[in-house]
């Protein structure tokens, strides 16, 4: 699923866009969690084709994305980064959006359109 379709399905607003042409990037998987250790455990073999949905909109969600080379985070429930953390996003490759949908609804909308969960061994 293309990034631009994910954004459309989630009716998401941009917080920060850092990667050129990322709207045309194809995403195969989604992982949804507020626990960053779970994200680090489940996405660590990924090649960057996973979108992270989270309600954890603090600096550690950005660090987690940095460690995993994730290029797309969508914050759920309309959450926003504060100004200090927004500055940090400028140094990153990550593109960050916010959606008004809850985690459950956001996951359901993406799953219904064919996005898959990450493979768990």
């Amino acid at each position, binding site marked *: 699923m293309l990034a631009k379709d994910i954004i459309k399905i989630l009716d998401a607003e941009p917080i920060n866009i850092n990667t050129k042409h990322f709207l045309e990037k194809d995403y195969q998987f989604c992982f949804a969690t*507020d*626990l*960053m*250790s*779970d994200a*680090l*455990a489940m996405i*660590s*073999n*990924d*090649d960057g084709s996973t979108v992270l949905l*989270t309600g*954890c909109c*603090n*600096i*550690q*969600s950005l*660090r*987690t994305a*940095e*460690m*995993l*080379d994730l290029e797309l985070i969508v914050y759920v429930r309309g959450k926003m980064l504060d100004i200090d953390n927004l500055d940090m996003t400028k140094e990153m490759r990550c593109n960050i959006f916010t959606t008004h949908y809850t985690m459950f609804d956001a996951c359901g909308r993406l799953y219904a359109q064919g996005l898959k969960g990450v493979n768990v061994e």
Partner: protein
Amino acid sequence: MLNKSFEVVNQDYHNMGKVSSQIKKMLLQIGFDAKILRRIAVASYEAEINMVIHAYGGNILMNVDDEGLITLTFHDLGPGIPDLEKAMTPGWSTADEKARNLGFGAGMGLVNIKRVSDTFDIKTSPAGTILTLTFKGY
């Protein structure tokens, strides 16, 4: 080939992960592959978080030898891990409310570190914990 020491500050939640970010960037400059860098970054980040949240900070030493073997040593100043077997159990955590609010305390830290490392050695005592990890860079 490369030796570098980094300080990790106790309870510094805002800068938690900064050292691991530096380590990843330095190893990228040497030319290691993105996949191995991701594994190293995940292990380093989890270990750094443990040092900040649980173990009063400490030092991280990075060594890269001529064969591309990367060794990370995390030497913390904490009280040690009373029950290592429990700490290695998925889901077991003693993280406080503040750490949980930042997205940590899932009880996956040490388990995850061991999973992504080529070798994993941990020695703990009331004087602190020394975690040594190695990764084959090539």
